């Protein structure tokens, strides 16, 4: 069910840019809160909703702006980049794409709701030493989220041509049973596919039309947007390091002196990249050496294919505006190689600007020819469940940076993924396959597949990105195995919690948002039960 942010709700949303000019805004930062939550994405919004519904007074700070639904449309020139924030791994090409607007990454995700496979929960237990966080104990949280966000299993009647290709590929690769229908946070998707523009028809479930209105409805939540959390302020006492306030500045004004917002507890839910950065910036914060270690990218890349048959399934909005696109919404995840080779794929968003960019290496005449045939192209987003050789958040001049080095194993996963995807695409009629490399080989026939076997590349040559970043503040049974305990409480502190993807002990192997929400609710209900 989509819940609108009403004018009453909006009266509790403030911008930190108004701190100097608005008395109301100043009052917001002078209030003492039961909890201050950093980040309004799938982790922070659920934590805030759970706490406010139990009567706690909560301030939620969000680095990005509030973008009202009425300002959202499907025009690439207007919407591209409005909701996101880009970071990259150090010295490498992989971008870390973070949601940066009220609603966090839920504004840019494709609304696919998946639970990790059992082998991932087994990995989590082995790595963390904690048995109590598993598929069964999280199930009530998954269910609650499913009810609020209308999680709906996709069905065959929604299959468009690109999804049919994914299904046919599974058959051609001898793995028809490894195709699973995905769940999505929508019961009435319009099938336009530009989910990462926030959904111009407001049919995609995100935090701004689900948990945030629910939390604001209680009257216990205040939201401060355009607000960058700099550090947690606190000191050691008898029971451990105790936070007393959150230091914040308006976004893009880090030179300005910080404002302190006082709260009884701090809940960090700014995503795997920024959560670690906030904790690392916090003076005298305990157990620093463990924070930000082993971040997983679970990187994606897009494989394109050109077909003789048209691939576009829909292209017209109700108002008559023509928006050509194809490849979405995904109704299938192909998981046939996930457990053994750590990759999977789904049919994904493709629109002219994205195709133009991804094949920009072609000579101009070839490029124009491909663009002319846009309706005959489709895109697979391939994803690798990674295990990097080196991956840790470090601070340089106060700014977070991901010190990263991919593993040979992850490169091999990508190579095998490209090989199987190309093999499958050619088997179901692709005329040409385009791989996401700076200088990709031409793949037009089965005998070309040998070129992929011989490919030598690193992430430097790979056109990849990550919006599934996780880890860095893993839960663990003790300080040697994690940053937080099973309740999300940071070891060595009495009142600092983590409630986002940085808790994951290993990459989740599927779309992470549902599990982020479930874990955040697990953390928040734990806070409530301890009083």
């Amino acid at each position: 069910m989509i819940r609108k942010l009403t004018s009453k709700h909006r009266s509790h949303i403030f911008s930190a840019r108004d701190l100097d000019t608005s008395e109301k805004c100043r009052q917001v930062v002078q209030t003492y809160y039961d909890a201050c939550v950093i980040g309004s994405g799938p982790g922070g919004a659920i934590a805030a909703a759970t706490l406010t519904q139990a009567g706690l007074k909560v301030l939620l700070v969000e680095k990005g702006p509030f973008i009202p639904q009425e300002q959202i449309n499907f025009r690439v020139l207007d919407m591209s980049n409005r909701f996101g924030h880009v970071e990259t791994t150090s010295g490498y090409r992989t971008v870390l794409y973070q949601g940066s607007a009220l609603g966090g990454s839920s504004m840019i995700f494709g609304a696919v709701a998946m639970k990790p496979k059992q082998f991932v929960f087994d990995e989590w237990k082995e790595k963390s030493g904690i048995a109590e966080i598993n598929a069964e104990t999280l199930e009530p949280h998954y269910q609650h989220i499913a009810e609020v966000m209308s999680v709906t299993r996709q069905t065959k009647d929604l299959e468009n041509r690109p999804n049919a290709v994914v299904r046919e590929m599974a058959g051609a690769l001898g793995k028809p049973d490894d195709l699973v229908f995905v769940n999505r946070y929508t019961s009435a998707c319009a099938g336009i596919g530009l989910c990462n523009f926030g959904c111009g028809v407001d049919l995609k479930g995100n935090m701004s039309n689900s948990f945030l209105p629910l939390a604001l409805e209680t009257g216990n939540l205040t939201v401060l947007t355009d607000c960058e959390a700099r550090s947690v302020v606190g000191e050691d006492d008898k029971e451990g390091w105790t936070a007393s306030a959150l230091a914040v500045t308006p976004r893009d004004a880090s030179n300005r002196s910080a404002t302190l917002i006082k709260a009884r507890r701090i809940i960090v839910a700014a995503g795997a990249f920024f959560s670690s950065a906030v904790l690392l910036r916090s003076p005298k914060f305990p157990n620093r050496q463990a924070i930000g270690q082993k971040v997983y990218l679970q990187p994606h890349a897009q494989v394109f294919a050109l077909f003789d048959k048209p691939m576009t399934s829909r292209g017209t909005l109700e108002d008559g505006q023509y928006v050509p696109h194809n490849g979405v919404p995904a109704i299938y995840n192909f998981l046939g190689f996930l457990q053994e080779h750590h990759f999977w794929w789904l049919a994904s968003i493709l629109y002219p600007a994205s195709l133009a960019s991804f094949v920009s290496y072609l000579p101009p005449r070839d490029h124009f020819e491909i663009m002319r045939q846009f309706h005959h192209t489709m895109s697979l987003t391939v994803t690798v469940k990674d295990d990097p050789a080196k991956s840790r958040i470090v601070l340089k001049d106060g700014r977070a940076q991901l010190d990263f080095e991919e593993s040979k194993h992850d490169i091999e996963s990508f190579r095998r993924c490209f090989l199987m995807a190309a093999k499958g695409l050619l088997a179901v009629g692709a005329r040409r396959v385009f791989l996401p490399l700076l200088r990709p080989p031409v793949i037009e026939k089965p005998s070309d597949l040998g070129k992929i076997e011989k490919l030598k590349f690193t992430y430097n040559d790979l056109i990849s990105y990550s919006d599934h970043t996780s880890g860095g503040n893993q839960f663990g049974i003790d300080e040697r195995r994690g940053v937080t305990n099973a309740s999300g409480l940071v070891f060595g502190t009495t009142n600092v919690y983590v409630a986002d993807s940085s808790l994951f002990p290993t990459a989740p192997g599927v779309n992470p948002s549902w599990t982020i929400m479930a874990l955040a609710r697990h953390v928040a209900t734990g806070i409530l039960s301890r009083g």
Partner: protein
Amino acid sequence: MEPLEEILQEITSFETQLSRRSFIGAALLIAVAADVSLGKDDKRFIDAVAATLIPATALQSTGINVGQNIDRLLQSGNADHRRKVTRFVAWSQRASILYGGEKVALNARGSRFMLVRKMGRTLSSLCLIAFWADERALTLIDVPEESA
């Protein structure tokens, strides 16, 4: 991922490598003062580069101005994004002295320097996105005979 994010990824990578590597062109690729939108010279440069990547007939028939569209794309991003893009365009313009002027995007692709190849690709992508993101470009796409 949205296309502009891809550009920013490349630009950030470009910046990172620029600070770590040295080669003959590096002296020319100096950082310039951050600006929030493209200047007249930058736009002229971008339009000239775009003309090497997109057929003249396509540019004429659609009436699309690539430089203007980049400015419009920048308006939707935050200040950090705008700084990165404007700085990158300024760098590219300086590097173009070594790589064939407005043909820099094409010529840089063949460079033996990874950094220059990336610059070529990024510049190409930036221009091509700004063109194909414009709804007027849709008239250039063949309409499929049959809707799948």
